[in-house]
């Protein structure tokens, strides 16, 4: 029944999906944390930048960001991100677009986590003579992260599925392969869909379960 799969490299395609997810996941976590720090910073310019960035990027469809990254950065400005050949450049641009977009959701999750940390603790830390940066990195963020593992897992799951948008700029990940197969294997089309749906479930389900467990383990007792 699954003979038709033999002529396609399913694993290669999903491997690209996995790489997109890992690189973008790490990047989103870092950039999202920086954005959250900006949004709670005492410097008005930083707060304004953070707010504007979130409101703009979060409300733009990912496809638009993806295509704009490809057309704007690469084809117009010739920025290749050190990619060399065009498929590597496409991959890097896709990662960049995914980070730009998902960092918004990381930031907003983190901000709600920051709100769960009693202000008194930040004040006590300031009263000890810690700087804003130290208060943030030593007291506030460690507790904020622990309280938002579950929401961050949701961002990661959304990110995994959203990597399919990279197909729009020619990255040969799972969804791109699926389009090809849908065209060539129209007689088993439902089976094709099922295979890819199953593939994504294999990626996202364990992530959700694992991080759900981590979330309970690291919760701060108050």
């Amino acid at each position, binding site marked *: 029944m699954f003979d038709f799969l033999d002529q396609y490299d399913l694993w290669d395609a999903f491997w690209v999906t996995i790489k997109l997810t890992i690189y973008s996941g790490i990047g989103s976590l870092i950039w999202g944390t920086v954005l959250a720090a900006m949004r709670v910073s005492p410097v008005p310019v930083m707060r304004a930048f953070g707010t504007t960035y979130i409101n703009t990027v979060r409300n733009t469809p990912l496809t638009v960001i993806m295509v704009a990254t490809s057309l704007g950065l690469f084809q117009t400005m010739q920025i290749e991100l050190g990619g060399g050949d065009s498929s590597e450049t496409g991959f890097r641009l896709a990662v960049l677009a995914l980070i730009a977009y998902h960092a918004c959701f990381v930031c907003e999750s983190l901000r709600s986590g920051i709100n769960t940390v009693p202000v008194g603790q930040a004040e*006590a830390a300031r009263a*000890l003579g810690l700087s804003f940066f130290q208060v943030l990195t030593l007291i506030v963020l460690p507790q904020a992260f622990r309280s938002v593992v579950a929401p961050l897992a949701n961002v990661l799951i959304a990110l995994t599925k959203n990597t399919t948008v990279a197909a729009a700029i020619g990255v040969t990940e799972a969804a791109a392969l699926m389009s090809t197969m849908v065209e060539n294997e129209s007689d088993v089309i439902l089976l094709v869909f099922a295979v890819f749906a199953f593939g994504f479930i294999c990626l996202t389900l364990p992530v959700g379960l694992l991080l759900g467990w981590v979330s309970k383990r690291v919760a701060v007792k108050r």
Partner: protein
Amino acid sequence: MSKVSVTKDAGPPESAPSGLVVLDNVNKHFGALHVLQDIDLTIARGEVVVVIGPSGSGKSTLCRTINRLEPIDSGYIAIDGKPLPAEGRELAELRADVGMVFQAFNLFAHKTVLENVTLGQLKVRKTEKQEAIANARKLLDRVGVANQADKYPAQLSGGQQQRVAIARALAMDPKVMLFDEPTSALDPEMINEVLEVMQQLARDGMTMVVVTHEMGFARSAANRVVFMADGRIAEEATPDQFFSNPRSDRAKDFLSKILHH
């Protein structure tokens, strides 16, 4: 902001009084609310001052202006001869010299008791780790919670948490300690264990500003009682004078209310 015009007066008073903590003509507003009005207060080295007064009279705000957790609108505040700097590196250094103990303890929930007490030493004073730990254990022993060092704050009783908070502040080797209603959030049976630690601290010569309604503590440990009402210092006296023979009507009224409880 409020329509009240305030003159920015950062300079020291004409005849600068010498004291460890000096507040001169301090004013502060929260919007239209004039929460601190022309506050003059000088605290000598080794002195223990109890601040008392009705809720909302500005006691907490007064405490918090002394380490600039609340900035002031006008006036002058100095610690050990140094005027409070603006936000930044210098202010952080000054805050390290002013210990603060809060009503709600505010221990760092994700850190153990020992880590709570070593954090400031390691990150602000840059003390060697071994030395910081030894120092922390000594202080935890002094406040009577040495055996709780590896627990998390949530595993401790309120009285124990507050004593850890005192140790955390003492670990910075502060010049002055501020206490904002340190026993108000405690169950009655835990109040004394905290007051005893504070009394010992007073006997050891620590300069202290204590917002509290614990008259026993005020009588036995304080050199002076400052009575606040509506953002002003309404009366200053020795504890004996204040409790047995208050001069202002506001103080008489206030005392009659707390004494009947």
